[in-house]
């Protein structure tokens, strides 16, 4: 695969991939490093990419594994705690001037407190728009398990919101 063809293939995916890494690692520098590593990995495996039809799934799976390794290296299997979020807020967080800013803050906290796997699956489903089947392939789970995890995550968030503000599930 030529360089141009490779870049044409990868370039549109970069923002989404970075978003995934950024929210997984909750650290811009780590996300950038993970992305650079991923790009090099993809370039070195470009011969396989020619035949890989589901390139997006492949990229996300590779990035997911890389993020796991990084998190393991950090010796923690959960996402960054509130202290880290404050640090991120200083640099990158959008100011919540909207009407529902308090609610959104609550959701953010609830999401960050989700177990690792639930958070990843929610990210892939709600942020990246993957189908359950694709998520199941990426996470090496059954489709049912993914559905259950999504449901459980939503229930957890709803529960927390209900406790805090009174919103919940139907």
């Amino acid at each position, binding site marked *: 695969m*030529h*360089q141009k063809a*490779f*870049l044409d293939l*990868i370039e549109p995916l*970069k*923002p989404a991939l*970075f*978003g995934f890494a*950024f*929210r997984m690692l909750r650290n*811009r520098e780590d*996300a*950038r490093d993970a*992305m*650079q590593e991923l*790009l*090099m990995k993809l*370039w070195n495996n470009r011969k396989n990419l020619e035949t890989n039809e589901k390139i997006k799934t492949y990229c996300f799976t590779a990035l997911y594994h890389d993020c796991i390794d990084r998190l393991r290296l950090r010796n923690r299997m959960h996402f960054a705690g509130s202290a880290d979020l404050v640090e991120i807020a200083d*640099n*990158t*967080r*959008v100011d*919540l001037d*909207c009407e*529902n800013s308090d*609610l*959104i803050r609550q*959701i*953010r906290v609830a*999401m960050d407190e989700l177990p690792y796997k639930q958070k990843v699956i929610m990210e892939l489903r*709600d*942020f990246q728009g993957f189908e359950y089947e694709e998520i199941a392939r990426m996470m090496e789970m059954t489709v049912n398990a993914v*559905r259950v995890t*999504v*449901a*459980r995550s*939503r*229930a957890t*968030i*709803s529960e927390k*919101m209900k406790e805090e503000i009174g*919103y*919940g*599930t*139907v």
Partner: protein
Amino acid sequence: MEQFDPEFKNIYDEYVKLEKAETERAYSEIENDLTLKLPVRRFRWVYPAAAAILLLIAGTWALTSEQSPFRTKQKYTEAEIRESLEKTIHALTACSKTVRQEFSRVEDLSAMTGAISPGKKSPTPNSNRNESNTTKN
């Protein structure tokens, strides 16, 4: 399956939008760092071509130049050949002289010590026996 209620769903969607906006902002700040720095491939033929030309020049020089130790086609003049032959003959003559001198020295030494000279055939026990037989006869 667990679903958000419609009102909460709207807020959740807003949260997703905000998170995405935040990520986009972070991405725009580091976008330039995420350029895959690959070697410029536009002129990738330049280095092999230059190497081939240099090799060709070096090869031509090595095979044709008089200074080259790898020259294969040597064109000698008659004088050069004669000179070379004379040198060889001189060397061979000197060598044969030395050999002859050494040989005579060994002969002298063997004569002095009573040893058999290296040029003569050594007498075998049978030959001695034959000699004694003939004298008897």
